[in-house]
């Protein structure tokens, strides 16, 4: 295959003309005649027993169609929301999570009753009249206290609050003995709300006449949702159609089944009305699972010359009131805790702790931002302890031979870590900055620089390690390529864009593989009634490295058939037929050509080879041989105002390597957005609960601080290109890279700026309040020290 014009080209997006015109179709833009709107009555308490639910007043409210509680849904929904093995196959307990509470609520925002009414406003009015009588129970909020056997239980009938406790590699007391310096730190990862600007939403219509269910929803995983709804509602998969057109962001939060997905569809079945539910923002922050919610106890040792020796990691992960469908995926943080470096020994243990908060689940990066953050913080802490330059310690310890097998047996497919580091250092002007910093400090100006030489695992995933992911379904990917008689092409994929630009980039791959004009190719996704039997969705930076390869593979199957037919037409041997830039010809006779479109027409005609069926289309499933391993170096430059604790993020440099690039404009856009979410975690965002009552304090966008354009500087991007040997396109993933890299760069810069105060570590978000207090404490400590010396 000749790599021709389209792969690597900056093609402007096909999605945009409709989206900039207000002509997109997000789930709330669909309404069916007779639609009833659903409002959900949610628990105001973190933990309570439900004594009674009185719907008398609510039932009489204008426009009310129906009110359903657990006992109604128990007739329509079987079982609970499934929990995937993810990276913790053996769990201690996964409390059964029925989509609506029966006798006990275990987090603020858990569904207790639903109201259907003729209009949105009437549904909310009536929901406010549902009278639920609760007995409050103690809220378990602190992970360490929750692990005490005497702690109150998150579920009053639970054995304890341990969801899992898994040691990946046991501690080896001998390992640390080789180290000349040892550092210890507790590193927090605050809870984050994914906050897609389009909230979640579901609309469902059940046709009693033929028993079919159509579901319109904002989702990253249309086919997996159909699978989960089949299991939950007992309808055949063939009778359920999930439609998801434009999706207004997801960041993981629309990548797994949630309570409302079952409640809306079951309510449509129970009421025989189309039912629509659109999440409010407070519902989203309270009820849509959070990301992160962890702390890590780490201990690391190095030799005097900077050689890394041993790392000991214990992850405590706040699972919430139930274990999220993919919540345990975040255990991957342990397996990547060594980052881009060679370590002699790493021990790791993950502990999943139940608390009376909404469950945590996958959010952009899921486990990998945590791994980078802890590893890159540890590297800087060791550099500080050794009085070594943070650049030098990284250079000394980078993995350099690929494939590189890490301490947990994961195989990094390709990398050139130092190259990305060098480029980033050059862009920032590292040596010059250190001089400015030195001069600044003499004038009371606190500048800091922070490096993050990140790696990640993505392109989920090979069938073997993901086989058990969701009820036995391995997370491979599918595509179907159809060439019509007149030569235009439709491509159906199992991935689903929620901003990733698949309508633009996948046809770029098809154009080059089939050698047909880009404009003749149309991409379709987000409707389970079309295309291959199953698709796996978009998450874990997998769409290109797995889905793009399925597209490539299906296109190649089409080319193979077309070549056979061309040979037949040319009356030549197949081996003598050349395919170049969409043209077939016989070796030595390049002037007698047949274009793909001509072969397409012939394929639907009468004169085929004896063993050939009509048509020119193919389905392919791609099962990657490994994950893919992008990497890069990010550098943040900050100034901290010691009087206010305010962090001014002055520059942000990102040099990333995601292998071959299909469309550089899209890749840069993904990095921009990803970096911004990591900066947001480092400096602004945190879901805060009152630790006694379990009441959320950040339930609106007034309190939950998504950055605006004012907080994000111009981001300076460049890349290196190290093709992946894992797939024929040489591609990796880039959707999560920015988020995986950036919190560490920012916090390392903040810590660097504060090093004159003797501050070694700052937790996130590095808010003015937190930093100011740390500076005050450091000043007190230092003056006490001076007193003591007198």
């Amino acid at each position, binding site marked *: 295959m000749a790599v021709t014009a389209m792969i690597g*080209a*900056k*093609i*402007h*997006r096909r999605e*945009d*003309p409709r*989206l*900039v*015109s*207000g*002509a*997109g179709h*997000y789930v*709330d*833009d669909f*309404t069916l005649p007779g639609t009833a709107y659903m409002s959900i009555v949610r628990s105001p308490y973190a933990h309570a027993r439900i004594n009674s639910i009185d719907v008398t007043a609510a039932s009489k409210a204008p426009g009310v169609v129906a009110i359903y509680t657990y006992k109604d849904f128990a007739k329509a929904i079987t079982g609970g929301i499934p929990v995937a093995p993810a990276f913790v196959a053996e769990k201690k307990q996964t409390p059964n999570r029925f989509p609506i509470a029966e006798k006990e609520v275990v987090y603020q925002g858990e569904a207790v009753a639903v109201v259907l009414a003729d209009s*949105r*406003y009437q549904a909310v009015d009536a929901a406010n009249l549902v009278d639920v009588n609760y007995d409050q129970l103690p809220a378990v909020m602190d992970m360490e206290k929750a692990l005490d056997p005497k702690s109150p239980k998150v579920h009053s009938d639970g054995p304890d609050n341990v969801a899992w406790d898994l040691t990946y590699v046991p501690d080896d007391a001998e390992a640390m003995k080789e180290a000349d310096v040892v550092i210890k730190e507790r590193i927090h990862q605050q809870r984050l709300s994914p*906050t*897609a*600007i*389009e*909230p979640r939403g579901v609309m469902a219509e059940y046709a009693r006449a033929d028993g079919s269910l159509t579901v319109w929803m904002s989702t990253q995983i249309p086919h997996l949702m159909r699978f989960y709804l089949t299991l939950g509602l007992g309808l055949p998969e063939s009778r359920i159609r999930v439609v998801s057109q*434009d*999706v*207004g*962001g997801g*960041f993981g939060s629309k990548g797994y089944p949630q309570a409302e997905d079952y409640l809306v569809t079951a309510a449509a079945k129970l009421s025989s009305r189309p039912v629509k539910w*659109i999440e*409010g*923002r*407070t519902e989203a922050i309270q009820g849509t699972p959070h990301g992160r919610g962890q702390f890590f106890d780490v201990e690391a040792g190095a030799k005097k010359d900077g050689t890394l020796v041993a790392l000991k990691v214990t992850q405590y992960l706040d699972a919430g009131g139930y274990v999220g469908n993919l919540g345990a995926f975040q255990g991957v943080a342990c397996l990547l805790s060594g980052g881009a470096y060679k370590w002699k020994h790493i021990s790791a243990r993950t502990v999943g702790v139940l608390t009376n908060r909404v469950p945590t689940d996958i959010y952009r990066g899921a486990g990998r931002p945590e791994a980078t953050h802890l590893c890159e913080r540890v590297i800087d802490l060791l550099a500080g302890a050794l009085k070594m330059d943070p650049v030098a310690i990284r250079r000394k310890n980078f993995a350099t031979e690929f494939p590189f097998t890490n301490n947990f047996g994961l195989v990094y497919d390709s990398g050139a870590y130092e190259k990305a580091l060098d480029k980033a250092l050059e862009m920032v002007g590292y040596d010059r900055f250190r001089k400015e910093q030195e001069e600044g400090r003499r004038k009371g100006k606190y500048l800091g620089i922070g490096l993050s030489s990140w790696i990640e695992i993505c392109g989920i995933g090979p069938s073997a390690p993901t086989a058990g992911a969701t009820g036995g379904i391995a997370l491979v990917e599918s595509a179907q390529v159809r060439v019509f008689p007149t030569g235009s092409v439709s491509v159906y994929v199992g991935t689903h864009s*929620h*901003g*990733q*630009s698949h309508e633009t980039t996948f046809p770029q791959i098809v154009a080059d593989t089939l050698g047909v004009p880009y404009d003749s190719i149309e991409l379709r996704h987000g409707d389970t009634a079309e295309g291959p039997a199953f698709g796996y969705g978009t998450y874990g930076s997998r769409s290109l490295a797995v889905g793009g390869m399925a597209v490539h593979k299906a296109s190649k199957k089409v080319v193979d058939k077309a070549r056979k037919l061309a040979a037949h037409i040319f009356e030549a041997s197949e081996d003598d037929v050349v395919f170049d830039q969409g043209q077939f010809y016989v070796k030595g006779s390049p002037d007698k050509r047949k274009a793909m479109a001509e072969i397409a027409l012939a394929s639907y005609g009468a004169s085929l080879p004896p063993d050939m069926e009509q048509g020119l289309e193919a389905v392919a499933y791609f099962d990657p041989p490994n994950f893919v391993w992008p990497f890069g170096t990010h550098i943040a430059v900050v100034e901290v105002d010691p009087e206010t604790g305010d962090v001014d993020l002055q520059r942000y440099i990102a040099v990333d390597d995601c292998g071959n690039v299909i469309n*550089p*404009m*899209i890749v*840069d*856009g*993904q990095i*921009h*957005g*990803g*970096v*911004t*979410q990591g900066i947001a975690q480092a400096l602004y965002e945190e879901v805060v609960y009152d630790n006694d009552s379990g009441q959320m304090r950040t339930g*609106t*966008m*007034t309190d939950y601080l*998504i950055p*605006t*354009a*004012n907080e*994000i500087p*111009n*981001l300076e991007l460049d890349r290196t290109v190290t093709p992946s040997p894992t797939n024929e396109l040489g591609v990796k993933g880039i959707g999560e890279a*920015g988020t995986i890299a950036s919190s560490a760069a920012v916090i390392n810069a903040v810590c660097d700026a504060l090093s004159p105060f003797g501050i070694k570590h700052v937790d996130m978000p590095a808010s003015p309040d937190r930093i100011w207090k740390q500076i005050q404490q450091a000043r007190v400590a230092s003056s006490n020290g001076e007193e003591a010396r007198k």
Partner: protein
Amino acid sequence: MKQKVATTINGERREHEVEPRLLLVHYIRDVVGLTGTHIGCDTSQCGACTILVDGKAVKSCTMFALQAEGRSLTTIEGMAKDGQLHPLQQAFWDEHGLQCGYCTPGFIMAAAYLLSENPNPTDDEIRQGLEGNLCRCTGYVNIVKSVKSAAATMGGATAKAGAKSAAGRS
């Protein structure tokens, strides 16, 4: 008790009977049927519902439909003229100023007002002018570029960023 509200939306006269409590954004979306104006929060933070009311950017969740009586409203659907995208729409396309596209109509409307007040804004003025709108996908970098590029197309005096061809290669 429903009351009458008469407005001009995108140049077309509209008249409906609505509940007094109906928010303008719900009126535009659910009654008039213009679904390009989006809703992203309950508290007037996100700006996805931004429209122009008599030429000024307004978050349409902060007004009742009845308060729009006699006003002239422009929504995203009213920006393109004769099948030609508005320079801001074109610039967001050219500069990759959107990904999922959900916040985009609000940004374009807020930017339209910004440029009507300040035809030649600096990057900082663009950032400040758009601080009432939240985007979760783009990191704002390309949104700022888009507005700057549109300003140049629309005749801002010194802006330099030129719109690039929609199918160009870098």
